[in-house]
């Protein structure tokens, strides 16, 4: 008839959604990498400066509704978003609509109370659009068109600023090998951004070094780069100006020719 009475029956499974009868505690105020002073320097001097330049360079941006549309990966304290609001939106008189990816939005996350407080503060700021949202998904989910992550990005995008401030390396996984890689997510984001009629900004922060870049993928990049240097004079000039790279040290086309990932 029935099994062990101490074991939950199949029928009872999933009726109660929690296993502990306890009110959630305040989130621990840990010190994370993004709290370092040098990170604030990056926020002010790199990100905000670039966004301000974008706004100054373009007579019009976005779809003209006075909203800066931002996609990012903020921490539970939403420091990045607060920074953009204070440094850009407020002085420029712009509204802000953000879509953030943060696992703290998962109800099971210990960071949830912290995120809820931050969201309460940020959404009360004048001009923060009601459609702004933080979702708990991994940004790499965007690579999958059937994912909820992608449906949110598609709904709120295209964006004026995409800020992928990654804790890990962008290129650790090989593109195309697995569905949910940064490469594939980026390909999807770029396809969406192609709808944007005005210039937009991509900020990408990643760990670099051989351990953080898939060798084959990197070789493929170098190959394309070398082909562009050879085939396009304008590219060569721009490359020289921007990176001081105007020729390939190695003329090879195989990954073995770039053992150290250098041109």
């Amino acid at each position, binding site marked *: 008839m029935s099994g062990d009475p101490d074991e939950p029956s199949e029928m009872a499974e*999933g*009726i*109660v*959604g*929690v296993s*502990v*009868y*306890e*009110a*959630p*505690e*305040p989130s621990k105020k840990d010190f994370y990498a993004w709290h370092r002073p040098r990170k604030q320097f990056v926020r002010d001097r790199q990100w905000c400066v670039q966004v301000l330049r974008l706004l100054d360079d373009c007579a019009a941006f976005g779809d003209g509704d006075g909203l800066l549309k931002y996609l990012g990966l903020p921490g539970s304290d939403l420091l990045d978003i607060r920074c953009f609001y204070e440094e850009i939106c407020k002085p420029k008189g712009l509204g802000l609509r953000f879509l953030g990816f943060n696992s703290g*939005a*998962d*109800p099971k996350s210990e960071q*949830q*109370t912290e995120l*809820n*407080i931050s*969201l*309460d*503060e940020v*959404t*009360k*700021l004048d001009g923060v659009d*009601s*459609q702004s*949202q933080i*979702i*708990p*998904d991994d940004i790499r*989910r965007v690579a*999958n068109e*059937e*994912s*909820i*992550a992608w*449906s949110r990005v*598609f*709904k709120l995008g295209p964006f004026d600023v995409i800020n992928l401030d990654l804790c890990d390396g962008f290129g650790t996984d090989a593109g195309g090998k697995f569905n949910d890689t940064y490469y594939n997510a980026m390909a999807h984001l770029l396809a969406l951004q192609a709808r944007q009629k005005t210039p937009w900004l991509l900020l990408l922060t990643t760990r670099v070094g051989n351990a953080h870049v898939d060798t084959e993928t990197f070789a493929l990049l170098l190959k394309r780069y070398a082909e562009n240097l050879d085939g396009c004079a304008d590219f060569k000039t721009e490359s020289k100006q921007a990176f001081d790279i105007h020729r390939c040290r190695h003329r090879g086309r195989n990954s073995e020719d770039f053992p150290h990932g250098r041109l």
Partner: protein
Amino acid sequence: MSAAGANGQQPSLAAQIRESTASHYVETVLKTDEQVIARVTDGIYRQPASALRELISNAYDADATRVVIKTDAPRFERITVEDDGRGMTPEVLEHLLEHIGGSAKRNQTGAELGITEHDDPTRSPKGRRLIGKIGIGLFSVSQLTHSFQIVTKVKDDPYRTIATVALRQFSDFKAKAPDGRETQFESGKVKIWRTKASDKAAHGTTIALTAIRPQARDTLRSRDIWSAIEHNEQVASPDDRQTIEPPKFHIGRVDTSGQLLQRTGGKQTNLPWGRSDKPDAAFKKMVDCVWEEVLGSNPNPRLERLFDYYLRMVWQIALAVPLPYVEGHLFDQPTSGWASVFELSNKVRGSTKRVEPKPPVKIRQALSLSDPKDDPGKFEIIFDDLKLKRPIRFRKLPTTDHALKHPLVFIGKCSEKFSGVPPALSGGPLSFEAYLFWSPKIAPTEHQGSLIRIHGSSGTLFDPTFMRYQVSEQTRLRQTTCEIFVSEGLDSALNIDRESFNNAHPHSVFITKWLHNALTQLATAQKRAASEVREASRAQKTEERIDEIQQIAAEVWAEEADDEGSVPPPVELSETGEKTKPNADGYAFSRSVVLRKKPQTKTRGSRARDLVLEEKVKAIAQVLVSYELLDGLTKRKQEQLLNAIYKILDASEDA
């Protein structure tokens, strides 16, 4: 009363009863048991929508101007309700947590805590009539979630107050204190702390639902319909599959991982609005899509079939809370040009009075209507992609084959003091305004019925029985929608879930009687209007047929006379058989001779037919004159000939 006990304390009621006699009776008041409250806190609502409606009501009572509800639809693991209301001081929070069910609203404690107007505990500090009441509004979320978080701040407080709450399941077992004694009924556990706020001026409350119950999540995800569809999709043989239609509009469905969306008919979602629509335009499209169904292939759209649970929930919330209408209040429509407006009588067996149509005058002005009685000021609700408004439209509605092509609007207002009955029995005075709106088509079908609002808020939605109206008027009732706006009274007749009425309450009884009386008046007026339209249309048709007959006679005459400018001589049927007007060409015959036939009961239809017959005879006489076939006969013979023709026409018509 009996004397106090030996220890100075009041003896128990039972002890007092034992001592009582007819001359020394016990007098006491009825008390409630806190177990009742614990039970209520545990969940009295049937639907997740009710919990959200209660949170919105709380925000309204807290003088919020804007409420933003965010869900992670269609996943439904996270729902937040943010408002810019007054926020809660630690004292208000303390009262809320320690006096569940003992709301500070509507009593002096409210004023002391600063949550109600200083000298009127039924109003918010900014003068709104309170729509929340029982102090369990916040705990209504127990229907939705095992735990929630409150983040609240009052203006100029340099701190935010945060509370996390884990709700306890109500159980027949009482919680035991460490010493083994049974404790009072515990509804949940709370952790509270304060955190420094840099935005001193900010104010408002955010409620985040942090552990949505699996069952509520399934409801929100419309699991019932999607499971049936999935099950059906897995049936191998197409012959064995049942016909299960997915809702036409839906927010999509998640797979078992909760990460991916599953496609239905090749689409992840099917929403009535577009990706780039602003929240107000998106909501308007949602309302319009229901009416578009009527014009399309679905004459009786039901929200239940058309929408998934989420969209239905949004619709119901939009109907329930104090918001403006999607295309304006009925009272703000003009008195002419689109509908006939009638004033309802408050007398038993009274009848309606037509409101004189004056183009620029609005119904509100013509009948001195005031709803919403106290302007609540700005109050808007953003629910994910949508800005909610009352999803009720009155203008430019589709018509049917019904003779009446425009709506009939019936307006009533009533103020009843229940004079001569103590308020303790009558429930005090009752005031309301109302409309009954008749149109050949009312969509969605869920709006066929009566909806009662108290200070703009309704938990009951449309009652399709019109408060148990027993008269068999099925067709007309399906063409009627009604809203009753109560500005005083009835509140105490609401049951504790605020989703039904205590039918025995004098205010419920009165409104029921009033509504039934109004429906009788509507039926009479609608029948009269329809019959007037039908008569007018018949007269129009008769006229057209007479024109046609006269045209034939005229053409024959002109052709025979070979003179296009000439008209046939007039033929007159008079009582005397003589011409009543001097006319050289004209003919006159005796009406009684020419139109002699068996007496018949006259109806409107036969009167119109007689008119046409008479014109036919006259036209035939003209045709006979055209061919010079009449003048050769004596007048008596002429009249006999015409009478014979008349009888033949009459007989052939009867066949």
